[in-house]
């Protein structure tokens, strides 16, 4: 593959979205656990994550900060940075349709290199921080293109980089710019273009629009969706904004305290969210298409991953909790249209938590803002400290 014209690319990938009904799996995650290694002991940021991402599908992952959603996203590509490590489980990548799956969790860093960017690429939150400040934009495209396509010459790689930039509406002469010479929105779009450099099957997106202003957010999102439709890659999209996910995703996973508490089709979560936490998120972020009504946040703060409650992690904040919630961890059970982990919903009565009456939330335990320092925030702090 040398240069990719729009027509060709659409053609080469067009089969995937059209065959979507057969829902060929791309990434199968089984019992994935990610630990943060800290001096005070290991913190499990993602616990027993199981989900399947299909080709060409958009998977949304939502949750509050420190819910483990960003960690999970990174772990899908084995991209979590120290001190986070994949401690258990498997991430099966179906490299090609019909071929045997490879378990990314078992590969060494060198073995992973063959799949990176070719199969899985990533767009991170802050484009400014993601682009090497002392390298021209063009070189940051050409190095990865030439790494994975050794046959491509220097000039060709540059042409391809120019095309990629044009795809996101950046003029090709900007290849010679340094990242800081671009505006914030441009940086973010350049990063998206970069993620598509090797025509990946899956693009991991970690809140790709939070660093830019609202108008730009919409623009970028539209662009992503347009490109996705054209090129047919799958997306795993992390955000705290559930309403956004409801608009764009095929499937949504809701994370809380390092676990998936509910996963299901966007439609299911839109129509009838089953977990009280999902319901709370829905109220916090109503879809734009819904009539205006009172917003309610979820009282309390995210759990301390070092010190999770014995039962359901959400129980201390849950308006509908029952006695069992404090003592017994609810399993993630298959229900029509998805899975949910709540004592109130059972396969027999999947919507048990929908009608349940809200109890007044009792004294918040372990919700002292200073005490709570979950692993994700910890990692974030580490990074912030380094940058200064």
């Amino acid at each position, binding site marked *: 593959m040398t240069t990719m014209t729009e027509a060709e690319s659409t053609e080469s990938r067009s089969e995937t979205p059209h065959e979507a009904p057969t829902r060929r799996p791309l990434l199968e995650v089984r019992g994935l656990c990610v*630990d943060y*290694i*800290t*001096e005070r002991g290991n913190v499990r940021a993602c616990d027993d994550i199981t989900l399947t991402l299909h080709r060409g599908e958009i998977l949304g992952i939502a949750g509050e900060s420190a819910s483990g959603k960003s960690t999970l996203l990174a772990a899908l590509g084995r991209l979590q940075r*120290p*001190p986070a*490590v994949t*401690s258990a489980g498997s991430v099966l990548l179906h490299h090609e349709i019909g071929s045997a799956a490879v378990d990314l969790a*078992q590969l*060494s860093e060198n073995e992973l290199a063959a799949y990176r960017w070719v199969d899985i690429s990533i767009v991170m939150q802050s484009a400014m921080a993601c682009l090497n400040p002392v390298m021209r934009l063009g070189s940051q495209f050409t190095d990865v293109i030439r790494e994975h396509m050794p046959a491509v010459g220097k000039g060709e790689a540059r042409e391809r980089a120019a095309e990629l930039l044009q795809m996101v509406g950046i003029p090709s002469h900007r290849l010679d710019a340094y990242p800081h010479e671009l505006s914030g929105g441009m940086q973010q779009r350049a990063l998206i273009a970069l993620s598509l450099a090797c025509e990946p099957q899956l693009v991991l997106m970690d809140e790709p629009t939070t660093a830019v202003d609202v108008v730009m957010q919409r623009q970028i999102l539209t662009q992503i969706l347009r490109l996705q439709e054209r090129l047919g890659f799958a997306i795993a999209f992390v955000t705290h904004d559930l309403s956004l996910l409801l608009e764009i995703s095929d499937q949504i996973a809701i994370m809380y305290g390092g676990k998936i508490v509910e996963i299901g089709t966007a439609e299911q979560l839109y129509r009838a969210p089953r977990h009280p936490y999902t319901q709370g998120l829905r109220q916090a972020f109503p879809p734009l298409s819904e009539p205006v009504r009172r917003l309610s946040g979820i009282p309390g703060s995210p759990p301390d991953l070092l010190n999770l409650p014995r039962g359901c992690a959400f129980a201390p904040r849950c308006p509908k909790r029952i006695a069992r919630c404090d003592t017994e961890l609810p399993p993630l059970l298959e229900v029509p249209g998805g899975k949910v982990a709540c004592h109130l919903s059972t396969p027999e009565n999947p919507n048990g938590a929908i009608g349940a009456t809200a109890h007044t939330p009792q004294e918040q335990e372990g919700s002292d803002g200073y005490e709570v320092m979950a692993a994700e925030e*910890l990692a974030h*702090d*580490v990074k912030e*400290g*380094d940058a200064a």
Partner: protein
Amino acid sequence: MLKRFLSLGKVQVGLVILGVFVLVAIIGEPFSTLVLHLGPYDYDHSALGQPPSARHLLGTTSTGQDVLVWLLYGTRNSILVGLGSAVVGIACTVLVGLTGGFIGGWTDRVLNAVTLIFQNVPSFAVLFIVAGFLGNANWIMVSLIIGFFEWPGGARAVRAQAMSLRGRDFATALRTVGESRWRIVLSEVLPHLSGVVSPMFLRLIAAGIGQQAAIAFLGIGSATDPSWGLMISYATNQNALFNGLWWWFVPPGLCLALIGLSTTMLNFGLDEVSNPTLSTKRMRLMNAFLKSQARVRASQKTSARGEVAA
């Protein structure tokens, strides 16, 4: 924070070394006079340039002075110079940094220019020349000069801190309540500066001790106050190297190196506490985990291969 700092191995070692030196600085002189019954200018004419023995634990110089006594007296001198430089340096740092950061405007600009000038003047050259002209530089002089020329890096950091603290909520809140600006500085801001000031304090101690030794070694400092640098200076001038009187010039240098080592260790400890990425303990845990995981993976692979073979 403090607990974590103290729990680090290198911090403990550093504190012990530093503590021992401070202790020696305090009790060294009474110990010499009361226990050893010797002063730095007592000459044992029966033991000229003798190696360590029961009578002279660290041996004697070529003129029969007791090396241990010199070392003990020198410790006091070094510690004084170290602390003196650190105190002077920190005072300049905090004063210039806070004033610039808090008052802003022209004051800040002028102070910034002064900082820039001081930052680019090699303190040793100044120390050398001043000491040279004065013909003598005791520990106070050395402390003043070192402290006076080694503050700019810290002052810039303090300034940045002060500027950011000024804008922070609690400072604004206090200002609206009517607290005076300098009271806010003293009560609220100073405690926040420990992160900048403490590593600097340690570095200045080392710088003061090192530069004083260098001055004394070159023969510019006081020629009578016993100090480690002066010991090395006398040793070289009196052919201790050629005659192999190693007990004369090895211990003072070792003391200098140890005291420098202790401040370096403490500074590494501070870095680790303020920046968890640098934590060696975590790195070790991390590597251990990855290794065990790799081992599991390898054994899985071999067992899988074994099954295939079977």
